[in-house]
């Protein structure tokens, strides 16, 4: 009678339609990440507030009109928006239990993220070397790098997270233990994307035009 539990319920023959929410742990992760992002929203909102308060405090240094070029920022926006779309594809394939395709699209998501990050690093280097516009040069500089850099840090964290997930599960296929992990990542990634849309409008568009 006494049988030892082998956790086989995590590795079903037929995957349920929503594998990411099929277990209690999965459901907890799903809700947990949403609440976490609620807190993240306030983090970014605070930084946006600081930025709006300080964006004209250039202390004689370059202003946003002189600095920003919309071309590069447009490319960055496209890269990140597309990466959000590819992660949707990945989750679609996860629900169809197509592990290979999910990996393909997650891989593309990661590459697009790296592309975004490369552009951002180039952008920052450009401001620092060509304009002497740094984290310390003025209150505007501090607020700009804090907000945009904090977002960039989130992208970097997301890429590291994704890489760890992809390497760890490469040989394992999909199961009810790792499906919530992929899904949690994708929700996080969408959030990063949405924040960028706000940065694009509030920092770059308003900075160039307003």
């Amino acid at each position: 009678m006494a049988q030892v539990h082998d956790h086989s319920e995590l590795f079903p023959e037929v995957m349920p339609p929503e594998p990411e929410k099929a277990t209690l742990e999965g459901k907890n992760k799903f809700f947990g990440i949403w609440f976490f992002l609620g807190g993240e929203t306030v983090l970014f909102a605070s930084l946006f507030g600081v930025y709006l308060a300080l964006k004209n405090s250039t202390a004689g240094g370059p202003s946003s009109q002189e600095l920003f070029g919309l071309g590069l920022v447009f490319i960055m926006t496209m890269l990140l928006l597309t990466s959000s779309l590819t992660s949707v594809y990945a989750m679609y394939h996860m629900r169809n239990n197509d592990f290979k395709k999910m990996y393909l699209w997650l891989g593309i998501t990661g590459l697009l993220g790296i592309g975004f990050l490369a552009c951002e690093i180039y952008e920052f280097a450009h401001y620092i070397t060509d304009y002497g516009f740094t984290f310390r040069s003025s209150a505007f500089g501090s607020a700009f790098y804090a907000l945009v850099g904090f977002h960039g840090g989130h992208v970097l964290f997301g890429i590291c997270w994704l890489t760890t997930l992809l390497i760890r599960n490469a040989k394992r296929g999909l199961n009810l233990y790792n499906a919530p992990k992929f899904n949690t990542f994708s929700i996080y990634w969408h959030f990063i994307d949405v924040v960028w849309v706000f940065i694009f409008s509030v920092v770059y568009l308003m900075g160039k035009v307003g």
Partner: protein
Amino acid sequence: MATTAAAKRSFWEFIWDYLTTVDHKKIAHLYLAGGGFFFILGGIEALIIRIQLIKPENDFISAGFYNEMITMHGTTMIFLAAMPIIVGLMNAIMPLQIGARDVAFPFLNALSFWLFFFGGLLLNLSFLFGGAPDAGWTSYASLSMDSSGHGIDYYIAGLQIAGAGTLMTGINFIATIVTMRAPGMTYMRMPLFTWTTFVTSVLILFAFPPLTINLFLLMFDRMFGTAFFNVALGGNQVIYQHLFWIFGHPEVYILILPMFGVFSEIFATFSRKRLFGYTAMVFATMLIAFLGFMVWAHHMFTVGLGPVANAIFAVGTMAIAVPTGIKIFNWLLTMWGGQVTINSAMLWALGFIPTFTIGGMTGVMLGSNVADYQYHDSYFVVGHFHYVIVGGSVFGIFAALHYWWPKMFGRVLNETLGKLTFWPFFIGVHLTFFVQHLLGLMGMPRRYWVFLEDQSLDLGNLISTIGAFLMGVGAIIFVINIIVSAFGEKAAADPWDGRTLEWAVSSPAPYYNFAQLPLVRGLDPLWIEKMEGNGKIPAAEPLGDVHMPNGSIIPFLMSIGFFISGFGFIYQTDNVYWYLALYGGLAFSIALMIIRSVKDDYGYYIPKEELEKALEGEAK
């Protein structure tokens, strides 16, 4: 020989057990012990402040040390004593009240505790290493940017680490209540303490991020030369005040709302009556939380935001008194016509009502932006917030400890000693803080090291100090009570003839909480079964293997990593070698995070047979 060896091993096993535990009930013990320790520390600091102010122009301590005392007293009491004890109570009771076996993220729960603990430790180590923070618990940029030494850096690093833990607790509790309520436990059947835990967690989730950002800005300015608050480079120090109070006002509700829940449970249980106006209580809680985010600028009336802004914030502030008043009346009406038992827990609850009402009343006075020009930064404010924080949060903590001690530790606290704790403390609170209102009205500013003779401040300050010592007496009697009770009788499962689910399991609860998840048939589920059933909660599932999470040492080690990194942050301005600690500590914690993520942890199962045996044991 053999027995001492066995005792020794079991001692280390005991320590190891607590270092690695992810059980919400044991984490609660840790929180209560940690919070209790810091409570004593904060209390000693308070007594030092009061001794310094016992007579005019006293020189008991230096002006610089006085500033460190007021700063550390406030910071310790709010972040390291009151909040952790409250989180401990939530940990101990909330999962039991909703019929869950643990919280949603047990691992994270342990991490939250250890982050709080090491954050608090870091903050207090500043005393040993060259001076504590000295810019007040608010640490306004105007003062903190100018403070020399590393005190403020300790404040930043310590609070950042502890705050991260608190934020995770908030997320954890919200997820727990959303996903893990037992069958039949609908939202509108949740006990009030669970409700206030829920709403408080939402407050934590939205209020702590502004503090996090604020501390980051201060850190960048102090340690990395940025210009957020550097006026010469276009910085703006009022931003700090805004961010601080956007956090700070909700914070005072984080401290009081859970206690509203505690009192609701206690009044209902000891009046043997259903809580009056349950629905109104739930919605008043939400309304207070919502309004709590809208009123932060009432701390900044004298900054010069302009008459329109001040007026709007004044009206919003006074509006909070309405839902608070609803609650007071509901508690009174819960007792009305009930069979009231007055014991220690109930005494604290009864003492709370007039004390907190006075505090709310002075709050409304302060909320008048015109009058506040007179009150602001005077002892009147000190009187106000101690009436609400001590009369609300601390009375609530004592009430909750007396009420739930049997459930948490398996022993009932001694009644006589309980009453002997209450009376000196209660009288002490009013002696200490009532005169402070008058002192403030006569012009005594807060945070001043000395006052002059013969300005009608002498007697009031003397009375205030005497009251403080009376509170100390009460606190000591409470500690004696804990020790005495540890040798007392074992507690029954339901010593108070309770109404809610936590009283349906043994005292203390078994480590899996419920062998079978309970089926809830209404508000006050245990009471319903006592009245309409056989007094036992029906099961919602057949007896089967129970899934449990594995313990882990990683939360403890990870927090040590952040702790070390905190020192790196603080001292890298002196010597670049400290970057080793900064990056080393971070790398250590991140590596552990990766290990945690990469190593599969499926948990384990308690076999059905073991549960059967335990149930048989209980039935006997």
